């Protein structure tokens, strides 16, 4: 137990360094779609858990959108109580295996950790992942036994969730654990929303993690209905007519934004949504064994600087691209992606084309993409949000050859459910307006959360919104606190 040996008694104690996460070597992983980060061993997890100071007033918990009792689960883990740690996390978080992998911890729990003052916060995300993975690997009987702590589900208390992404799964987890019958309607053929169509396999394994989290909800008698499109196959009114007492709308991000530059409809220019959906939901990396095809670019350019841009760039590498560039109009310091994703992307060979902005795509006589003209940018004065806004360097443009361009500059609200439900009050930007305390929309007993309320954001913020709405739904259906 090296960690304890290095510790000095309270007062002037020395904290061991943060335990590194083992990863597949970069040279190897760019040839497969398997997960990059391999997870802590038991020894690593224990060692890392023991670094936690067990603060009286834990700041990490306040940094978590779903208020996971972080200090408590780490304390349990440090003592070897895996099951206790899992139950503690699950008390507020329905998807620990997912969050441990995809949350921007540096801006949340780990950012708030007192040890972060020295740049060495407790690796909370990695510990959460360890607890979830290890617990889920236990025997199925153990999982079933967990159900005994839940009250029996009352078939009369029915709640519908539209969409099956992280927001809805959180609602389903929270309510079903409190005796409420939840049915989740998903428009696609697989359950999980962005966890399935958006985030790549190498960052979030579908069958090992997402399916298991969904299966755990099934054991809590949550029903999932696929190929059922809210606003087309059924309306919100239909759900109330069928006896649902409350409805949660978690339909996620929608129509991809494009750049509005010439040549954007050439073949070879994709939205990140299309590119990633083909590969992730359609398993196009296994084409032609699977039927969904995808372009295999030689010189790939990706536009945008968020996690989605990183995912697209790293996917293109794995599909055999010779060069992959991320074109971003600000500098490295402003890149909004999660730190770990940027690090992994660079290790794998993704090139950052910074302070550059596309002005036109070019194609051949068949309408196929061949190149792009980029405008050199520089950082100007800070804008209203405090960020220094990029401005073009007059007369400084240059060309790059590219045969596959992926646009990852965000999304607009999906119109299907919103047009079919005109009673919903929308914000100026076209997203659903909700009560900040309860998540309720302008229609009584209809709640909403996630990207359809906030615009494109993170998994954990969607889960936070789901939890807030679920608390209110439970209060209305069952009363009390």
């Amino acid at each position, binding site marked *: 137990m090296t960690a304890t040996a290095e510790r000095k008694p309270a007062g002037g104690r020395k904290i061991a360094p943060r335990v590194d996460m083992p990863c597949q070597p970069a040279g190897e992983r760019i040839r497969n779609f398997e997960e990059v980060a391999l997870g802590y061993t038991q020894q690593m997890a224990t060692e890392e858990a023991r670094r936690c100071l067990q603060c009286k007033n834990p700041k990490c918990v306040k940094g978590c959108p779903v208020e996971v009792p972080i200090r408590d689960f780490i304390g349990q883990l440090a003592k070897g109580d895996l099951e206790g740690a899992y139950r503690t996390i699950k008390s507020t978080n329905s998807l620990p295996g997912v969050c441990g992998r995809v949350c921007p911890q540096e801006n949340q729990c780990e950012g708030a950790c007192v040890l972060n003052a020295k740049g060495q916060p407790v690796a909370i995300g990695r510990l959460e992942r360890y607890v979830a993975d290890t617990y889920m690997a236990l025997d199925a009987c153990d999982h079933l036994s967990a159900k005994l702590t839940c009250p029996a589900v009352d078939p009369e208390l029915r709640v519908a969730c539209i969409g099956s992404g992280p927001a809805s799964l959180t609602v389903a987890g929270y309510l079903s654990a409190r005796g409420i019958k939840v049915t989740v309607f998903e*428009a*696609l*053929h697989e359950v999980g929303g962005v966890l399935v*169509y958006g985030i790549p396999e190498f960052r979030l394994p579908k069958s090992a993690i997402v399916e298991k989290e969904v299966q755990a909800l099934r054991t809590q008698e949550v029903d999932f*209905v*696929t*190929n*059922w*499109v809210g606003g*087309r*196959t*059924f309306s919100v009114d239909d759900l109330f007519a069928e006896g649902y007492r409350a409805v949660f709308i978690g339909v996620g*991000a*929608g*129509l*991809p934004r*494009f750049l509005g530059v010439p040549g*954007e*409809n*050439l*073949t*070879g220019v*994709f*939205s990140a*949504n*299309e590119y990633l*959906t*083909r590969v992730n*939901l*359609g*398993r196009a990396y296994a*084409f*032609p*064994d*699977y*039927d*969904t*095809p995808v*372009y295999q670019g030689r010189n790939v350019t990706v536009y945008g600087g968020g996690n989605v841009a990183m995912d697209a760039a790293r996917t293109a590498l794995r599909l055999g691209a010779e060069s992959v560039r991320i074109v971003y109009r600000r500098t490295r310091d402003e890149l909004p992606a999660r730190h770990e994703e940027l690090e992994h992307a660079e290790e794998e060979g993704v090139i950052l084309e910074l302070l550059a902005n596309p002005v036109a795509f070019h194609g051949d006589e*068949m*309408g*196929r993409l061949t190149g792009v003209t980029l405008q050199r940018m520089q950082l100007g004065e800070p804008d209203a949000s405090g960020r220094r806004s990029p401005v073009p360097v007059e007369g400084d443009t240059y060309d790059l050859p590219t045969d596959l361009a992926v646009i990852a500059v965000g999304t607009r609200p*999906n*119109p*299907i459910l919103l047009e079919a439900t005109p009673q919903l009050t929308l914000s100026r930007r076209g997203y659903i307006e909700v009560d900040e305390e309860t998540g309720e929309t302008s229609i009584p007993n209809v709640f909403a959360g996630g990207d359809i309320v906030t615009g494109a954001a993170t998994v954990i913020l969607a889960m936070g919104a789901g939890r807030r709405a679920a608390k209110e739904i439970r209060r209305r259906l069952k009363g009390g606190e």
Partner: protein
Amino acid sequence: MPCKILEKERLIPGQTSKLVIDAPHIAKKAQPGNFVILRVCEKGERIPLTIADADPERGTITIVYLVMGKSTALLETLDAGDSILDLCGPLGRPTHIEKAGTVICVGGGTGIAAMHHIAKGHHKAGNHVVAVIGARSKDLLLFYDELSSFCPEVLVSTDDGSFGHKGLVTDLLRQRLETDKTVSEVVAVGPVPMMAAVAKTTEPFGVKTTVSLNSIMVDGIGMCGACRVSVGGETRFACVDGPEFDGHKVDFNELRQRLAAFKPQEKLSYDHHCKCTCAGEK
């Protein structure tokens, strides 16, 4: 939820079939112009197909497809009693239908089946529907009887003259527009060159022209933008803004190029499938 095929009719053996599918949830909501997305098997691709007819009382929808790639070849292996793994809909905006007088509905190839549902909608709204349909030859002509059952006029053209006018549907359309000034709208569904030609034919007459586009789609629910088309210089999504657009404003050349985006992969996939099925693996 898998949906069961109740009837299968081989309209043109080995090439085009009609399926009547048990899907009450879709039939209840389906309107002319809507489409479905389906997936035949676990490893299958999502493909869009226009709803050719819907019977809400019986709880069925009808689709007609041309075998042109792996997914439709797989669909062709199914028979009455088999189920389609994933079927989702109805998708897309319904056809804008109002009582307007005479409406000419033009259909070519498999598009005739898709046009049938739209023609029926116009008929029910009290419009005088003239169907203009074309095929290479008489034995490849679809839905003649179905359309004749409610359309007061069904005009036919074939490339070889084996039935009706020898020539193109646009010949019949032009003749009609020259002599009939009561035509308030022309609807066209079929191959891209045909729809482009229809739009070109009607333009000098200033008649409103609606085309139903068959863009490539992945999700079909407004997420991916694969189906984007330029309409009047603006980018629109066929799955949520369409699939029907003003034919005089659609950039058909761009549509044609975008439809060819995956041609090499489609061929690879189809050849792979043929090799596997010939080897008896299926």
